[in-house]
């Protein structure tokens, strides 16, 4: 390639990069307006609670199995790995503390959030995207029914309500799994397990913060899921791309938000 061609090539790449960035920013603005509109028009979703309940069923109840089983396994692995390291310092009685704090503060909200994004988030995106592709959304508009109020808002609130419940269940199952492995399998003292845990896990600082995190994650994931579905290109390829984008963007959002929230909440107990 000649120098001129190389320059053109580079300029083209830079332009595309610039366009890409600006279009993402534009999209974020669009998504924010979408969120605002949806929240303002949530009257139907909340008045006709039947609709939202159906969505809680599809997003929450149908995710129960994967959340409970994953929680159990994560708790069990935490206990195994934790014991390995703790017993080297003679601190194996703190196993309960390790398992409980890890789950309640971090793993519960984050892993449950990631699982929720891949299971329920992608399902929501695919559903809305397919409704768009088969013109069901247009049909609803033509029948003078606002599709955002009728289809999108119930799914949003269903996800937001389900997420903290799933995170709490994940943590609870994980602690139970940790108990199974730690106390029953390995032989850590049951009394020490629970009592040290109770002494170390604070209701406000740890549990409430964990719940707060899961609420924030729920809002983020469901918002991304409904937006990507609604904005999907109404073809088979468009819907599949939108579903992928939901899972990827949600996961990144969860991890980024987790960092921000952890930095805000758990600043290690203020040192004087």
């Amino acid at each position: 390639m000649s120098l001129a061609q190389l320059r053109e090539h580079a300029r083209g790449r830079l332009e595309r990069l610039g366009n890409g960035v600006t279009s993402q920013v534009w999209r974020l603005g669009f998504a924010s307006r979408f969120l605002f509109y949806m929240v303002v028009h949530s009257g139907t979703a909340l008045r006709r609670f039947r609709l939202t309940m159906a969505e809680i069923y599809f997003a929450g109840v149908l995710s129960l199995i994967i959340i409970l089983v994953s929680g159990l396994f994560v708790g069990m692995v935490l206990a195994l790995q934790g014991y390995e390291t703790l017993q080297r310092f003679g601190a194996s009685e703190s196993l309960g503390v390790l398992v409980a704090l890890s789950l309640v503060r971090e793993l519960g909200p984050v892993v449950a959030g990631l699982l929720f994004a891949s299971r329920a988030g992608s399902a929501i995106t695919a559903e809305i995207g397919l409704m768009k592709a088969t013109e069901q959304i247009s049909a609803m508009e033509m029948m003078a029914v606002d599709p955002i109020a009728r289809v999108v808002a119930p799914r949003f609130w269903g996800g937001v309500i389900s997420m903290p419940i799933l995170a709490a269940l994940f943590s609870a199952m994980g602690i139970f799994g940790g108990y199974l492995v730690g106390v029953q399998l390995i032989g850590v003292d049951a009394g020490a397990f629970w009592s040290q845990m109770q002494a170390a896990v604070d209701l406000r600082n740890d549990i409430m913060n964990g719940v707060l995190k899961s609420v924030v994650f729920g809002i983020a994931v469901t918002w991304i899921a409904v937006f990507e579905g609604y904005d999907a290109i109404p073809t088979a390829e468009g819907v599949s791309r939108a579903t992928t984008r939901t899972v990827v963007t949600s996961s990144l959002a969860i991890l980024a938000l987790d960092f921000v929230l952890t930095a805000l909440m758990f600043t290690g107990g203020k040192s004087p």
Partner: protein
Amino acid sequence: MQQSPIVEIKNVAFGYDRARPVLRDVTLAIAPGSVIGIMGQSGCGKTTLLRIIAAQFLPTKGSAQVLGEATSQLDREGLYRMRRKMGMLFQFGALFTDMSVYDNVAFPLREHTALPEDLIHDLVMLKLQAVGLRGARELMPAELSGGMARRVALARSIALDPQLILYDEPFTGLDPISFGVIVRLIRELNDSLGATSIIVTHDVQEALGVVDYVYFMAAGKIIAQGKPDEIRQSREPFVRQFVNGARDGPVPFHYPAPDYAAEFELAGA
């Protein structure tokens, strides 16, 4: 035709993006009570015109008056008010896949009226009976054939007894029997409801048999119009090619391409 037109399109131009206008200069007026056909090749803009009438899009130039109101003047409330007097049949039915046939037809009634369930039940039965699918009320859309799905969608679009019914390619992909059924239903429903119907299609022969008036579109403009008999006897080259399904005419068979011989690099080409 002394009544004011139910749909009046004046010099409408529209494009989905600036660069490519889909409609260039369209003017038509539709009298109430008639069945109108809008025909043309794929991509000529007829579906877009239908969407402009349905106020899904606003014209970039010119005005569209539907049911006595200018679509560009309507706010959301007004738009929804107007749409409650219209029914639209989408190309493949667009039934709500998570609801049964009964719930699909009941949907507009449940959303827009406060009628009690037993009254809604009676109305749904009436509409389903009109399209001959009362026995299919419990089926899910996935269990219906294409023709049946379209009939259910038709029942749904007339649930609120609309004054204007829009059909977007209602005959696509139907077997001859379903075809005949839909064609007859369009006419019967129009007359019994006292409504006006606009059909967008490219099924010339069958459509000519049911409509009162036809508009032909090409390249975003109306190039011919008239009663079915006039159209059948038209001398206009495009209309003739369309009606006869001729291979070549004003619409060429070959997409523009460089010289054929040059393709094979023949000497002396």
